[in-house]
Structures are given as C-alpha cells and as structure tokens.
C-alpha cells in the first residue's frame, strides 16, 4: 500500500494483533505470583491452605526452588559489582514491595487468584532503606548482610586536569538534579506462556520481550537446560521502551513450571503488579559542577551520578549510571572532566532500562546547569551552547574521559535550524513582554546527544556487558523469487520489521511486498547479540540485512550472467532483473534466476545450489544521534499548572530509511518526556511502600495533554554504518525534561527555586511557599 509507513500494521486496527494474553493452549494452566507487601522483612511462608484448594496444581515458594533455579546472570557486570544472589522467588527475606514470594499454578486464573490469596506470609519487619540518602548514611541498615554497605558498585573517570581548570575558572555553577522514578508503562503488561515441548523434551516460551536470545540464555543458565531445548517465541509486543529488554524471574519460573508440570502454563501480569514488579527507570541524582570562562566557554566539568538501583542489581540496570558517565559531557568540547558513579540499593523495586537509559538523567543535569551558567554570565542560553558545541571538522571527537566518541554531526547547523524554525529571538522577546504584563511565560532549550547502534562487541567487552554488540541476518530467496528475511530484532511498534523489509527490497531492487520478515523465534532466527534496545535495530540489524542482501545479489548476478552467457562483471541487478549493463535486451528476471538456483540443472561451475545468504554486522563505533528541543511554557501562578504551549524538536539520526517511522519515534519519545517532566512519578511512603499502584494514580499524558509539536531535521549519514543510519528510538525522551524545566525557570525567574531541578515538576512545587 503506497503512502503507508507500515502497511502490515493494518491487522492491529482489525483487532487481529496477537499478544501473549491472546494465546492459549489445550490444557493450559494459569499462574499467579504472590508478592511481598512489605519493603523489608524476614518472612516465613505457609502455603498449605493454598495447596488444598481444588484445582490448584502446584504452589512453589523460595525454598522449593533453591536447588532448581539459579540466580539470573548479570548482563552489565561492572568491575567490583556486588551480587545479590537473589533467585526468582524470595527465600527467608524480602527486600521490596512486589518481590515474588510464591507462585500458584491452577486450572483457572480465578482458582489461582483465590489460592494466591490464601498463601500466608508472616513478616518480621526490618528497618527500611527508602532513599539514596538513607542508603548511604553511615548507620544505614544493610540490605545484604555480606556487603560492607549498600553500594553495588562505583567508579570514576578523569580527563585533562579538572582540579586545575576549576581553580583557574572565573565562573562556577553547580547543582543537584533529580530524575524521579518512572514507569515505562507499556500498555501491554508483561506476559509469558510456557509450554512443555515433548518432541525436544524442552520448553517453548512465548514472552513479550525485546531480547529473545538473551531470554533463552538466561533460562538455560538458571535452569541448567541446554539452549537447543529452549525455544523463545515473541508474539506481538504491546510496547516495551526498555522495560522488557532484560530477562525477568517470572520468565524463568514459567519455563521451570512448564518443564516440571509438562504442561502449558500462562502468567499475565496485572496492571497493579506491573507498578511494583516491572522494572521502572531513572531514579537518579546527578550532582554537577561547571567551570566557565567569562565569555561562556566550558572549562571544566565535574559530575557525580548516583543511581537508586532498588533492591538488587538486577540485569543491566547498573549500566544506566555508566551510560550516564559516558554521555554527561554531551555535545560540547570540555577539556577537563571528572565523572564519578555510584549505584546503591534501597528497599524498592529494582530499576531497569527505560527509554534513554542514563542519558536523559545526565542531559537534565547538564542542560539545566548550562542555563544557570548563561544567566550567571549574562548571555543568551542558545549562544552559550553554540560557543561550546563540537564542530564537524573535529569529528570523530573523543570526550576528555575517552568514554564517548562523537562520530559525526552538524551541531551548530542544527541549533540554527531549530532556532530559526522556532522563531527563537522573537519568542524570547514576546515572552519577556508577557512577563512584564505579569504572565509567567518562558522559553527553554536543551541540546542532546543520544548513544545509538549499540554497539561494538569489543566495546561491550571492555565495559563489562556480558554479550556482543553485533547482529546476524539471513536471507532466503524462494524458488519463485520472493524473499524471506530472518532477524533477531523484535518489532514492538517501532516498525523495525518494515525498515528491514525496505532495506532488503532496495538492495535487491524488488517491490517491498515481495519481502517478508521473520522475527521473534530463536529456533528460526539468527542470533542477535543484544536484542532490540539501545536504538540499534536499523543501524545494526539493518546493516546486517543490507550486507546479506548484497551477498544474495552477487549470487543472483552470477547466475543471471551464466544464463545470459555474459561475464559476471558485465551484469547488474536492476528493477527486479539481471541484465547486461547498457543492454536491456539481454535480461533475465529475478524469478528466473532464482528458479535456476533451485533447479541446479545448469549453474556456474562450483556454485552451490539454492539461494540464501548470511551476514553479520559488528559496528566500529556507536553512532551518536543528536538534536535540540525548544519549549515555550506558561505557568498558571494560581494553580502551578504548566501549559506547554509549543515544542520544536530538531534531530539528526543520519540517513532516514523510513522518515515517517523516524518522526513517529521522535514524537512518541517527546510525549513520554513530557510525562516524565510534568506528570509521572512512582512515589513511596516513608516505609518504602509504593503509593502509586494503579493507572489512576499514574497520570500518563492523554491526547489533550499534548502541545503542538514541530519537527525539523538534518540527515548526516554516519560514516561508520553501511546504511548510514543512526538510531532514533530514545531521542525524544532525552532533552524534553531540561527544555521544559528551563522554560519554567525562565517563566518564573528566581521564584522557581529548586523546583525545576527535580522531576517530575508538579504544580504544587511551583506555588509560592
């Protein structure tokens, strides 16, 4: 269907999406997880009443799985990182509200819920660590008795001579910037259907996950089952945004149950569970200091990133602080830098990956601090940024710490493009005039860089990621000339399946509809080293497809040349056929060449029959997407409500293979950014109990909350990727908090105080105290 960004999306409109909760099997059993209602306590579990309920097949608690289920692997294992040793069910002690304590399997979901309510957990409360400050206090209760404190890991990096730079600099600004705990809140919660596979004496797991191969590996590790007996299938994924990127205990448990019971077992997370059990994101404090010259050059940066990890170093989330350390210098030339990270445990749900993964947090700090610096020095905030942006001729440009390589981009051109499109000068003037009339109107901006196309395998190894960073694609042309692409990438609404289809079709000069893409099946699809995350689908998955298609093209051309009696070098593939260059009369269709490959009656000497190709792609570097967000806001002085009047967003993700899908990613990210800036927060009481337990208490943006959004873009192809594409999935969410906070600060002046340094910025915090 020409003109449609993603024709295959039509099934969702018809109600024909197939998510895990839509799947069922004959004899399927239902699992319900019993979770801790206390933040920190010793426990004993009595499941006898639950086991006695008619229709209950099995109840397991932490003691039952000690021997059978090992603690999950750590995916981002930074040096010196401490381990929790926690398994899929708590044993003897709970450390957060929502921690799985028992799992009930029954013949119906209603029976399972009823029995789950009969599992008795006796709690002997322990002192609770509810915040970073409490975790770091000298006399803090410890979450893990064999740790000396509540610190999971810490590290520091230096470049240049930061102390000297600060000593000599005439201007210093500093601040503490807090990004609150938020939920990715995919509308589809997590869900798993695990089925015993008698043919392989194995297990097939249907799960709503971003990383099927990573899940398979975790199940194999935890259960001691060989990987070839485990098949992970990913049906339609109803949103993920990072929260489904790492394996969860429930997925391991369900695989175990299916093997144990030799039956299909399904678990669907309720929304209430999701609020305490699906890994939230952010929850980070960034302390930042800037040293500047009197004309606004950044001379030095010092930052301390403190991540509240929640109750255990689950999966990859310690890495969010490390990613923040990499990204904290942003798009700027800063010669002298010191960055430190520390990750602490508290009695809250373990945090995980969420759109941006450490970058929005440091962007909020840096871009807020730059605004304060501009005010202090007395120059326009956009001008201050301009003076410090890395110029194109300096790229690829390593940061002072060596952690970040700015690969390519036209930063200043982007800034100008966006300022012009926003009519920035005029708006600043109008806002000033409106303020003079008593209205709280302000303009704010934030520049951003986004690390995408994660990431070179060697880099993954250097920074402790327990996987590679490559992707593999295989492509098979059928005898009739159509093509099937097999990928490890997972569609979850971003449309990666459509992008891969386009890349393959373009390489083979075929119509898009002659290419299908198979994904989400570890038995069929090639290995992906990191799944769909880190904005890597198009750049890495897509480059692998492009290389495989190019190999297929070479073979097609060789067969075509043979059929035409021409030399392979004299033919080319164009518009669905192989032809002798500049001689349209000597041409064979792709279908005829494909048929010849499978008949194998007459192939070039030494050529294998059949027509398929495989390629892997491992990038040389990350690709750094970048851009700028501008916001105009008005704050209602009576209510504190913030009306975002306009947003303009400039972005450059390299070559855009499907511009409509790029735009969709950017806008979706912007609106999640608005949510995290003004509305969303997972709050806890002093006892560490979550007070946000249902959607009614978690105000996602709805349509009426969305301001007009205008986009502008550049396309600067990354020199390091065959298709020139950088990732874009996280862009929108990164600079929006700082842009809006800066606009609120501009609107309210000094009376804004610290309120604009803590996300979310709620109306009550903007009222005079």
């Amino acid at each position, binding site marked *: 269907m020409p003109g*449609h960004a993603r024709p295959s999306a039509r099934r969702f409109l018809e109600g024909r999406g197939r998510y895990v909760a839509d799947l069922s099997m004959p004899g399927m059993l239902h699992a319900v997880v019993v979770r801790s209602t206390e933040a920190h306590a010793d426990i004993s579990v009595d499941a006898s009443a639950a086991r006695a309920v008619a229709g209950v097949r099995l109840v397991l608690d932490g003691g039952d799985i000690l021997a059978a289920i090992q603690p999950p692997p750590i995916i981002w294992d930074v040096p010196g990182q401490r381990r929790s040793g926690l398994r899929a069910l708590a044993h003897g002690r709970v450390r957060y509200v929502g921690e799985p304590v028992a799992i009930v399997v029954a013949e119906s979901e209603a029976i399972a819920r009823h029995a789950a309510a009969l599992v008795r957990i006796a709690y002997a409360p322990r002192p609770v660590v509810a915040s970073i400050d409490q975790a770091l206090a000298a006399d803090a209760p410890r979450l893990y008795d064999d740790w000396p404190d509540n610190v999971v890991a810490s590290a520091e990096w230096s470049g240049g001579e930061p102390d000297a730079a600060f000593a000599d600099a005439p201007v210093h600004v500093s601040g503490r910037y807090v990004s609150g705990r938020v939920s990715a809140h995919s509308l589809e919660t997590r869900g798993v259907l695990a089925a015993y596979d008698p043919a392989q004496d194995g297990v097939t797991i249907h799960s709503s996950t971003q990383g099927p191969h990573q899940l398979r590996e975790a199940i194999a590790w935890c259960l001691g089952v060989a990987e070839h007996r485990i098949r992970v299938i990913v049906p339609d994924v109803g949103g993920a945004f990072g929260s489904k990127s790492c394996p969860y205990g429930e997925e391991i448990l369900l695989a175990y149950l299916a093997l144990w019971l030799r039956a299909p077992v399904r678990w669907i997370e309720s929304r209430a569970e999701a609020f305490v059990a699906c890994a939230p994101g952010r929850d980070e404090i960034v302390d930042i200091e800037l040293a500047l010259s009197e004309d606004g050059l950044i001379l030095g940066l010092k930052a301390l990133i403190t991540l509240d990890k929640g109750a255990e170093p689950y999966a990859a989330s310690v890495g969010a602080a490390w990613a923040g350390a990499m990204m904290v210098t942003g798009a700027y030339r800063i010669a002298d830098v010191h960055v430190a990270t520390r990750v602490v445990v508290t009695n809250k749900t373990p945090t995980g990956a969420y759109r941006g993964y450490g970058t929005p947090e440091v962007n909020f700090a840096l871009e807020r601090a730059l605004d304060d610096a501009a005010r202090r020095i007395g120059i326009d905030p956009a001008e201050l940024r301009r003076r410090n942006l890395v110029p194109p001729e300096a790229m690829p440009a390593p940061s002072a710490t060596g952690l970040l390589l700015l690969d390519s981009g036209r930063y200043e051109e982007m800034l100008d493009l966006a300022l012009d499109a926003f009519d920035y000068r005029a708006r600043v003037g109008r806002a000033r005039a409106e303020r003079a009339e008593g209205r709280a109107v302000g303009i704010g901006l934030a520049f951003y860089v986004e690390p995408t196309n994660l990431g070179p395998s060697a880099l993954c190894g250097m920074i402790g990621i327990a996987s590679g960073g490559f992707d593999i694609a295989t492509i098979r042309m059928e005898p009739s000339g159509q093509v099937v692409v097999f990928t490890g990438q997972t569609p979850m609404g971003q449309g990666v399946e459509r992008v891969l289809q386009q890349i393959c079709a373009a390489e083979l000069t075929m119509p898009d509809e002659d290419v299908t893409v198979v994904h989400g099946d570890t038995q069929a699809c090639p290995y992906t080293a990191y799944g769909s995350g880190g904005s890597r689908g198009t750049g890495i998955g897509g480059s692998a497809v492009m290389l495989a298609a190019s190999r297929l093209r070479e073979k097609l051309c060789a067969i075509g040349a043979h059929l035409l009696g021409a030399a392979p070098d004299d033919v080319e593939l164009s518009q669905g056929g192989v032809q002798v260059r500049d001689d349209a009369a000597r041409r064979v269709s792709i279908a005829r060449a494909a048929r010849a490959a499978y008949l194998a009656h007459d192939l070039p000497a030494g050529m294998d029959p059949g027509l398929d190709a495989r390629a892997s792609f491992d990038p040389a570097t990350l690709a750094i997407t970048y851009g700028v967000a501008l916001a105009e806001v008005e704050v209602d002085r009576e209510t504190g409500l913030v009306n975002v009047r306009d947003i303009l967003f400039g972005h450059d993700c390299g070559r855009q293979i499907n511009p409509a899908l790029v735009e969709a990613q950017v806008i979706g990210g912007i609106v999640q950014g608005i949510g995290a800036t003004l509305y969303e927060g997972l709050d806890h009481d002093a006892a560490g109990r979550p007070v946000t337990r249902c959607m009614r208490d978690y105000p996602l943006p709805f349509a009426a909350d969305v301001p007009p959004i205008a986009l502008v873009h550049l396309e600067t192809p990354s020199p390091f990727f065959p298709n020139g594409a950088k990732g874009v999935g996280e862009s929108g969410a990164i600079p929006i908090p700082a842009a809006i906070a800066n606009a609120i600060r501009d609107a309210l002046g000094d009376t804004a105080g610290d309120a604009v340094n803590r996300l979310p910025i709620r109306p009550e915090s903007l009222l005079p105290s």
Partner: protein
Amino acid sequence: MLINCTLNGRDTAIEAAATTRLSALLRETLGLTGTHVACDEGVCGSCTVLLDGSAARACLTLAGQCDGVAIETVEGVAAGETFETIADAFLRHNALQCGFCTPGFVTTVAAMLRDDARERLGDAEVEARISSVACRCTGYLPIVAAVRDLLGRDR
C-alpha cells in the same frame, strides 16, 4: 444467567455469571481477543466497545448489564462499513505503533462517526473523546490528525 444480546450483529445467548466483566467474557468465553485489557479499572480505554452504539469500557461493564444490548467489538467494527475509511486514515497518518491500544481508538472513532460527528460534535468534544483512550507509543498527534481527517476538519 442467560444473557440475550446482539454481538457484532448476531443475536446471541451467552451463559455467564452476571458479575463477569464484559472484557473477560469477550476475551475468554467468546474468543474475541481484539478487546484488550491494559488497566482493568476504566482508565486506559483499550477495552472500549460499543454498547447500543455508544463507546463504553468493557472492563467496567458487567455481563448482567448486557441483556438486551447490542454489543459491538473491534472485530465487529472491522467488518462494518466505516472501517475502511478508519483504517485508511490511521495507516496514512501512521497513527499506531504497538497496536495494543488501537482497538480502543477504532471503536471510539467508529462511535463518533456514527454520531454524525462531522456536524454535531464540537472540537472540544472530539478532543475529549480522543482523550478517553491512552496510547504510550504515538504521542497522539498522528491519532488526532487521523481523526480530524476522518471528520473532515483541518487542524
């Protein structure tokens, strides 16, 4: 109880406990899995169906309330006359990503079109109705654009 209703245009008799949520009845008993449950408390609108032509939350509707009611789910809308124009507008504006909330928007929009909204509904009412369904992927702008397109309004 025995519930006599019209389901997607067919007279149907369903045996169900009166307190069964309509969302569960549709999904689990009748196999109509196009109706999605995201919050189960009436906030998100993913489970929106048409009851006698009006948009309603299936998760807040009990089976016992459906006796004598014409129920239309996204599957029914998809088989109906207005669907092609709805689908075309949503695809043209790229107004969906993961698709989980999409049936809620399709049913909500179908109800608006049947209200002859083109003439009757004010802009504020149209915005309020679109704002009855949560989407986490699209940022809404393409959905709003698709709906305004369907209603023949410029943005």
